[in-house]
């Protein structure tokens, strides 16, 4: 994990630049172990920035969430850049958005931070339910939790997010400044997806029916996702109404298929949807399946190629399924 003083110093320099509007980073949250996104408009704001294994959010969502008010007379549009602190997956998300022309490379300043994996808050709460507030740092493959005067040393594997345990891109692939040393990448083996694939159709449907039945259609998965940035989502569209608003297994399934399919070949695997889900639906199992398929069928990985996978074709794509 990056040295915090160095990070603050570099971010201060960037905020001070004429052509930068603000920098998005992390600050200490107000409740529990949570860390919240932070926006620095001046060098003084940077003092509250932190970076720890608790910084789970994918900050690539924010450039699209910013509200653009109508311009007053004689007012010029603010075209200054936005700085973002990016981990490996976040930088892939930004690269994917740039590739789809949702953002311009000139619009963003990327401060890359090699990431050794972030903590799953649900696991921390399950492991030490008595701890309410605390800080976490990493040391020699252990997470050290300092809380209420005590220190707890917990092996890294026990708290790491599921997606982080097999992260193939821990180092930012796109950045202007890189803070800290590059870390070793791991190998993705899609073990969960493969075990589920091997089950019979009935078992699979039973599994997913139970999961989709829980969905309350709050669309937190969509809002947290850095790649769900359409101006009007298909699910909000009333004419045609693709998915009805009733919370039934039929509409829930349609919504979840739709959400997953829209991320086919685009999902960067940051796991933000699963983290945002209040009903604990294993959304990453759907996303990973699509990631695996796209890799197998078209030899493509999101955020690393020139063109989006479903926007191009090759005359000799697989077609053994065609009658």
């Amino acid at each position, binding site marked *: 994990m990056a040295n915090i003083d160095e990070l603050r110093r570099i971010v201060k320099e960037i905020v001070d630049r004429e052509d930068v509007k603000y920098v998005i980073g992390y600050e200490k949250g107000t409740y529990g172990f949570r860390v919240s996104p932070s926006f620095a408009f001046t060098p003084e704001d940077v003092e509250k920035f932190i970076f720890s294994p608790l910084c789970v959010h994918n900050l690539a969502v924010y450039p699209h969430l910013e509200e653009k008010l109508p311009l007053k007379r004689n007012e010029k549009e603010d075209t200054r850049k936005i700085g973002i602190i990016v981990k490996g997956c976040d930088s892939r998300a930004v690269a994917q958005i740039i590739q789809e022309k949702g953002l311009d490379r000139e619009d963003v300043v990327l401060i890359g931070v090699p990431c050794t994996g972030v903590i799953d808050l649900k696991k921390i709460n399950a492991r030490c339910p008595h701890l309410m507030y605390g800080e976490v740092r990493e040391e020699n493959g252990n997470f050290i939790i300092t809380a209420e005067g005590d220190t707890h040393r917990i092996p890294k594997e026990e708290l790491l997010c599921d997606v982080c345990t097999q992260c193939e891109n821990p180092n930012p692939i796109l950045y202007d400044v890189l803070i800290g040393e590059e870390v070793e990448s791991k190998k993705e083996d899609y073990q969960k*997806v493969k075990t*589920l*694939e091997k089950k019979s*159709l*009935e*078992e*699979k*449907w*039973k*599994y*997913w*029916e139970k999961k989709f039945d829980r969905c309350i259609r709050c669309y937190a998965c969509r809002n947290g996702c850095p790649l769900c940035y359409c101006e009007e989502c*298909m699910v909000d569209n009333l004419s045609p109404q*693709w998915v*009805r608003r009733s919370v*039934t*297994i*039929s*509409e829930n*399934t*349609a919504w979840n*298929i*739709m959400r*997953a*399919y829209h991320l*086919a*070949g685009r999902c960067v695997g940051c796991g933000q949807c699963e983290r945002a889900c209040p009903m604990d639906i294993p959304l990453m199992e*759907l996303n990973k*399946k*699509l990631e695996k*398929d*796209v890799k197998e*069928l*078209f030899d493509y990985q999101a955020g690393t190629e020139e063109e989006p*996978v*479903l*926007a191009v*074709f*090759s*005359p000799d*794509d*697989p*077609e053994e*399924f*065609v*009658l």
Partner: protein
Amino acid sequence: MNEAKDEMNEFEPNIVAFLCNWCSYAGADLAGTSRMKYPPNVRVIRVMCSGRVNPMFVINALQQGADGVLIAGCHPGDCHYVQGNYYTRRRMAVLKRLLEYIGIEPERVQMAWVSASEGQKFADVIKEITEKVKKVGPQHHFRRRNVWRI
């Protein structure tokens, strides 16, 4: 009509077919004018190109009571819009695998290349998909229930 089906105790599937205007629809037309026999389970929706078929069309058809969906277009390289069917092929390859992963039988969503001169092939494709869908039975996974019928 549904009661009559129950009496005969045989399942007759509903199949929605998205046919491209330039090849498959003309192929279906040829099958009709040549008086070829094929099962009456298929309901045709004409689209200008198989590339028009949004994967949500497939999902919505399955929701609204279709037991199977067929998407037919021109042969690769023959598309009226040059490349539309290539995109569909990619999309459907991914969609079929996703549906299978969720537990929907892959037989329900099929793709075929039928050109305007292939009336016989169209009849064969419809026969094949009807048989396959009959075998897997009605789609009850995520069909809409308690819907007011007009």
